[in-house]
């Protein structure tokens, strides 16, 4: 009898949990969608913000462009460094100590909260290096933030590659470089692209690191690396926190979520596809 009650309570618990989880997830997406949808027009997407205070009228075009550019810069910066580091550690590093040290450094970096990175970016890039609040400063700060994420995944993809097939390549007398370019990279392509995409999504959604390093309340779509930018997450924050326009806040949130969900679906389909192929 006791057992029955326990089992029933247990079943109740896990069902309620599931319902709550699904409800929470659905709520977030539907809420933003429903409240934001009506404000989305082509004009909203393609024009600059205006009015007083700024943002109460007009659109979010520069913020969209700014966010996309920031994502691009951060991905390029982080990917190049992360790929090189992963290649070195897996294929060229002879010393176990060096490898361990590198891993510790990267782990520590991953643990630094994004706001602290923002502080760093501000002090070093914006002030000391006199780069000012710019696309470059913010993009690099974001790149630093996502570097560990990408590096860890690329390294993992490399290590999962079958050692015996690798040896088969070496046994033909071809060089390591050729093996990397012609055998390993093409094989790991899906994993690499998926991790870059996910990382790009994180970079685009992050507000803390760019608050002081490049994102501003208003700026036109940037023309140079040194121009300040607008970004969707920061724009959302300002619109809602300063109570400038609730309608446009919802719409901005919707645009941001829509872009991110598209990116994430793309990245996740890539990994799911790979799992099927592997079988």
């Amino acid at each position: 009898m006791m057992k029955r009650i326990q089992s029933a309570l247990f079943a109740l618990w896990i069902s309620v949990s599931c319902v709550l989880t699904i409800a929470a997830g659905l709520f977030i997406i539907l809420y933003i969608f429903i409240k934001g949808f009506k404000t989305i027009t082509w004009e909203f997407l393609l024009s600059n913000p205006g009015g007083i205070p700024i943002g109460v009228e007009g659109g979010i075009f520069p913020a969209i462009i700014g966010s996309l550019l920031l994502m691009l810069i951060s991905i390029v910066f982080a990917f190049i460094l992360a790929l090189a580091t992963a290649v070195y550690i897996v294929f060229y590093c002879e010393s176990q100590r060096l490898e361990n040290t590198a891993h510790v450094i990267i782990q520590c970096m991953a643990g630094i909260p994004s706001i602290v990175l923002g502080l760093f970016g501000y002090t070093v890039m914006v002030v000391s290096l006199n780069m000012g609040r710019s696309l470059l400063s913010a993009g690099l700060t974001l790149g630093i933030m996502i570097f560990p994420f990408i590096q860890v995944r690329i390294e993992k993809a490399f290590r999962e590659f079958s050692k015996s097939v690798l040896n088969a390549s070496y046994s033909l007398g071809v060089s390591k470089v050729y093996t990397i370019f012609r055998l390993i990279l093409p094989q790991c392509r899906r994993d690499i692209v998926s991790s870059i995409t996910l990382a790009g999504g994180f970079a685009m959604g992050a507000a803390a690191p760019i608050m002081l390093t490049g994102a501003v309340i208003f700026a036109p779509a940037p023309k140079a690396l040194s121009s300040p930018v607008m970004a969707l997450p920061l724009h959302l924050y300002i619109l809602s926190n300063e109570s400038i326009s609730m309608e446009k806040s919802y719409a901005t949130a919707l645009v941001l979520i829509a872009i991110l969900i598209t990116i994430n679906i793309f990245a996740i389909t890539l990994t799911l596809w790979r799992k099927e192929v592997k079988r």
Partner: protein
Amino acid sequence: MRIGFDKAFIILIKVLTLFSLLLLSFIIIFVFKEGYIFFKEVPILKFITGTTWNPLSDPRNLSIFNIILATLYVSLVAIIIALPIGVGSALLLSGYVKERPRLIIRGLIDIIAGIPSVIFGFIGLMVLVKFFEKFFDFPSGESVLAGGILLAVMVLPYIISTCDETMDKLYRKHSPAAQAMGISKIYILRTIVLPQSLRGIVAATVLAFGRAMGETMAVMMVIGNAPIMPRLLGKCQTIPSLIALEMGMAEVGSLHYHALFAAGFVLMVILLMINVALYYVKRSLNR
């Protein structure tokens, strides 16, 4: 020709790796140093245990005890809420969902995990805070509780993912034999999977707690930003929001500025301790 290219490539790789590692080390050292400068002026004990944070008065009196407490408090509330829901959902996921739909659901969970902090903050502001104000007649809905609930939703995907990995393996290992004996799924989950996943659950908790503590935007938008002694229904201030909010007003090089770095440093130390704890949990998990 091939040899030339090969050699150039190897050199490029080494240079880029060196650059990356130096850059990262520099950042770590830089943050530490900027914080340390504050500790030369103000003893670290006073900083951690004092309860006044008023950037407008003498910066030597800046202290973050309330703020540390609030950071821990909000994260704790989040875990208390998210843990039962996350573990419950993971149990159901591992026992009742087949392979194909499981992958899809895990994908959906990952998508939720990808929703940025600022959007959660926004929803928190529009929904939670207003809800508290309307239905419970609070003068202000911004509170530790609001922050906790919001963070709970944010760490839920991590708890579910981590637990599900462990639970799925356990379920698949034990269920064929158990079901052959006529035992119900519920019973298997309750008496085998759940107790055996304890270590995985602890790992998930520690992971989620660390994530919650580092969150900036979402928390910042709903806790009221008042560096006072935190109470469940009252306003508070966490270290990340403190830094975010006051970054702009502190002049580079001033003591206030170094105090912000010092606060960040304290946060990182706490996170480090949490990560070390996670490392030991993982080690005992593998035994």
